[in-house]
């Protein structure tokens, strides 16, 4: 009985709708799908999404690992506050994230007025999209790495230091190999979020077709303009990416738990 309830719920909410997307996309064969995907504006949207992800993921990975090391290994006042702020973006609406940046970098914003005065356009351009994506995906690496570091303990690192390893050598040879699965898992989650961010990006990008439109915005745009094939085709590519992400998550998870 519980099995039936659980499977029925998953099917109704998750599996059946996903199957429908496949069917809807290829309803009229492959040609319209290819047509929709090779549309230059769509290609541009995908390119922009990839570039934004390529910036946001490394930035958040370095930040996530550094902040995890600080929180787990060092003692300093204000640690609790720092810890709370890292998790904050998880609890925030993407709309709040987007609007915050919109106001900070807008014409009358604290930074925006100065930057615009010096000819630097952040809002409605790619820098704002990058900032919004980084903001929304800040916590993922740290959330995976912090518990792994805690569990690892610092004995191996101390052993390395008594054997003459410098701080950097200890990090490179002992700490990083021990937390690598947690880092990779965090990177996978960050990538998924970066590729899929909608709300925050919708606000700060200005949604200029062929210029500041990302893949998720393109889905919305196509749907609103009754280009269902376009919307479904782009969705399918994004869903396929999600499936790859999912497979990576499944493959990486047990390893991370064993470590």
């Amino acid at each position, binding site marked *: 009985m519980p099995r039936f309830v659980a499977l029925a719920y998953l099917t109704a909410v998750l599996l059946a709708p996903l199957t429908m997307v496949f069917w809807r996309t290829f309803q009229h064969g492959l040609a319209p799908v290819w047509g929709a995907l090779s549309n230059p504006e769509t290609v541009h949207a995908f390119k922009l999404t990839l570039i934004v992800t390529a910036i946001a993921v490394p930035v958040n990975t370095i930040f996530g690992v550094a902040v995890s090391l600080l929180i787990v290994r060092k003692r300093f006042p204000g640690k609790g506050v720092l810890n709370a702020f890292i998790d904050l973006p998880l609890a925030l*609406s993407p709309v709040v994230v987007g609007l915050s940046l919109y106001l900070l970098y807008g014409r009358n914003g604290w930074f925006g007025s100065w930057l615009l005065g010096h000819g630097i356009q952040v809002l409605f351009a790619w820098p704002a999209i990058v900032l919004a994506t980084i903001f929304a995906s800040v916590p993922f690496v740290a959330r995976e790495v912090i518990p792994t570091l805690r569990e690892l303990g610092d004995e191996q690192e101390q052993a390395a230091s008594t054997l003459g390893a410098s701080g950097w050598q200890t990090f490179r040879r002992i700490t990083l190999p021990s937390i690598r699965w947690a880092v990779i898992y965090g990177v996978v989650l960050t990538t998924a979020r970066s590729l899929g961010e909608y709300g925050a990006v919708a606000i700060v990008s200005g949604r200029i077709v062929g210029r500041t439109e990302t893949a998720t915005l393109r889905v919305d745009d196509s749907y609103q303009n009754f280009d269902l094939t376009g919307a479904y085709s782009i969705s399918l590519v994004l869903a396929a990416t999600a499936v790859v992400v999912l497979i990576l998550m499944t493959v990486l998870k047990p390893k991370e738990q064993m470590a």
Partner: protein
Amino acid sequence: MAESHANPVALRLSRAAGTSERAGTALSLGLVSTFLTLIVILPIAALVWESKRDGAHAFWQVVSSPEAVSAFKLTIGAAAIVALVNAVLGTVTAWVLVRDDFRGKALVNSVIDLPFALPTIVAGLTLLALYGPRSPIGVNLAFTRTAICLALCFVTLPFVVRTVQPVLLELDTEMEQAAHSLGASGLVTFRRIVLPNLLPGILSGLVLALARAVGEIGAVVLISGNLPYRTEVSSVYVMGRIESGDPAGAAAVAVVLLATSFAILLGVGGLRFLVTRHERA
């Protein structure tokens, strides 16, 4: 100017071995704080600043306007319903994944995370494909409140499952066997023995689901139709205010959403504190 946030913290570091290490800690703490300040804290400060720039009266006028109130009520109501559905069905799903055994369980287990991986706008479109105007099964939920709940269920599905699952895995089945041997029926054992142990896990999953549901926009925006007073949630309302050139109004409602997020985190944090009493010495 951002460095000034980090420096007082960095200066009072505890005595660690070697001054170079201490300097290294101070430097990385400074960099990390600066990054977090620039990316997260300053934007939020700008949002709060903007919302109260025209004074408390203006803020209140926006927030208490009938359309904003209606959107907020809908948001909270839908989020609460979805959180409860998740608490029940998420726990059942976690139970099935840990205690039950059937072909394809591993597959089901990995599919649970799909909503984490799938872009929210795609999730919305996906639901429209099955439960929209051209529904092949004849169920058209588009532009209804039910659709909003459905979309929120989709995006919040993994939270409770993933917080309850590890607790269930660790749970000692001997405790249940002891209860059975003392004459407790299956249902009584679940209610009196298993559930109290799962409650902290359920609650933390619930908070995450609730926070996520209150702020969600991508999954909702296509399927809800955004009809004012009927199917417009707060996040969509904020977006609408921005698009119609009223950033101050948008900021006011966004601050309410921000405060709601904090309240959820604090409120359930307190509840969790009560529920986990027995784990503290």
